[in-house]
């Protein structure tokens, strides 16, 4: 279905008020605005109207909020400016979409996930990292010998056997990568990592489920063995969550205090 340009233009108001709830429609309109300078300037003006409406609604925040925010600020790392280059667009994640339960059951194994039990693959993995292979290659390498791993753990086996298991992965800016098996129907996922930087004493890697409202700890990564971490299962994953990984002081924190090095929409 194509919208007429006139129709499209009429959406500037709803867009500026965040009143377009369908993601696809919003994204289409965002693209339209990027190529339409009169729309962009109209949206800017409307956002200023909205800002005046926000100021008109100002309320005294709870008194404790100031100290809490300032304390959080003092322990939160800032993101660097976006340095624009003409390099090819960065793709932060690679997909093996909708790896079905049937395929999983056919005997695919996540060797990186279970590297702790698969010492013989270690050499290969080191080689792969040394060659700085693409994320897809690291992921593909991890997708192996599933039967052995699932025999070791009933919970893992159950998650892997769920219908529509998806495999996601993301390279961390600080080195290494995370591979995630997502079983949406069970609201569970399995995370394992490979090649993350070694942490100084007193620091741990902590996983988070980052929702639109709440951030919930999903546990700590176990210590690395040969550069890999054993699988961690996270439950109560809801649609729209992101999986984050941060470096925190041991033994972990209630809320993240640093910028995630992995931030993967699940």
């Amino acid at each position, binding site marked *: 279905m194509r919208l007429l340009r006139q129709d499209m233009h*009429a959406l500037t108001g*709803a867009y500026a008020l965040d*009143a377009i709830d*369908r993601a696809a429609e919003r994204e289409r309109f965002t693209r339209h605005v990027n190529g339409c300078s009169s729309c962009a300037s109209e949206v800017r003006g409307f956002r200023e109207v909205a800002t*005046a409406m926000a*100021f008109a609604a100002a309320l005294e925040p709870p008194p404790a909020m100031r100290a809490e925010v300032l304390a959080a600020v003092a322990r939160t790392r800032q993101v660097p400016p976006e340095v624009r280059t003409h390099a090819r667009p960065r793709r932060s994640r690679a997909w093996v979409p909708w790896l079905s339960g049937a395929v999983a059951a056919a005997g695919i194994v996540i060797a990186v996930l279970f590297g702790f039990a698969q010492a013989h693959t270690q050499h290969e993995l080191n080689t792969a990292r040394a060659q700085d292979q693409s994320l897809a290659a690291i992921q593909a390498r991890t997708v192996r010998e599933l039967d052995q791993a699932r025999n070791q753990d009933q919970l893992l086996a159950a998650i892997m056997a769920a219908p529509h298991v998806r495999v996601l992965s993301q390279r961390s800016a600080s080195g290494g990568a995370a591979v995630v098996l997502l079983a949406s129907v069970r609201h569970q996922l399995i995370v394992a990592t490979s090649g993350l930087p070694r942490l100084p004493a007193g620091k741990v890697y902590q996983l988070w489920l980052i929702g639109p*409202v709440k951030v919930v700890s999903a546990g700590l990564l176990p210590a690395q063995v040969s550069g890999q971490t054993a699988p961690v299962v996270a439950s109560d994953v809801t649609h729209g969550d992101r999986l984050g990984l941060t470096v925190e002081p041991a033994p972990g924190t209630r809320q993240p205090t640093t910028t995630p090095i992995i931030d993967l929409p699940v």
Partner: protein
Amino acid sequence: MNPSDPDASRFRSTSTDGRGERDLDDLLIYVARGDQAAFEAVYDRLAGPVYGVVRRVLRDPSQSEEVAQEVLLEVWRTAARFDPAMGGAATWVMTIAHRRAIDGVRASTAAAEREQRNAEINIPRDEVAEAVEASLDRERVRRCLDGLTEIQRESITLAYYGGYSYRQVADLLKVTLGAIKTRIRDGLIRMRDCLGVS
């Protein structure tokens, strides 16, 4: 960066209007460099509107506080991404705040709860009286909203303060989707002119 920097006074607002856009833009540049004193000044200027708009949309005080905190922390975290060419600092922050509040609404499964709010779609005037500053903004916005047609005013307040999508607004007001898009846009054009937004 010491938060109790005695030099923090250099960031105190000298502007007399409620928003002092120019100052805020400058402050954010310092915030982007990790200046916590500058952030405190930003907080003191924007925490009220941030909390107010989030609370207006979400209603629940504790959820609102949580979201407002996230928004303000987000401002600190991503200050380096603020681009003055895309609009003023206050607008940047309020856009983040409103969007986060809307995310909260749309993630909420308590749809039934929201239905009950249909009855109270107009801005409760006494709630406005709780506002931090008896600001110029409040009077101007009220006056400009009063200058709209009823359907323009309702569609804008439902969408912005009520957190409804334009589809939901169309449904509530019993008009077509095409009509509601136009009403929102026309209303905002009038508001823009009335508020003297460039």
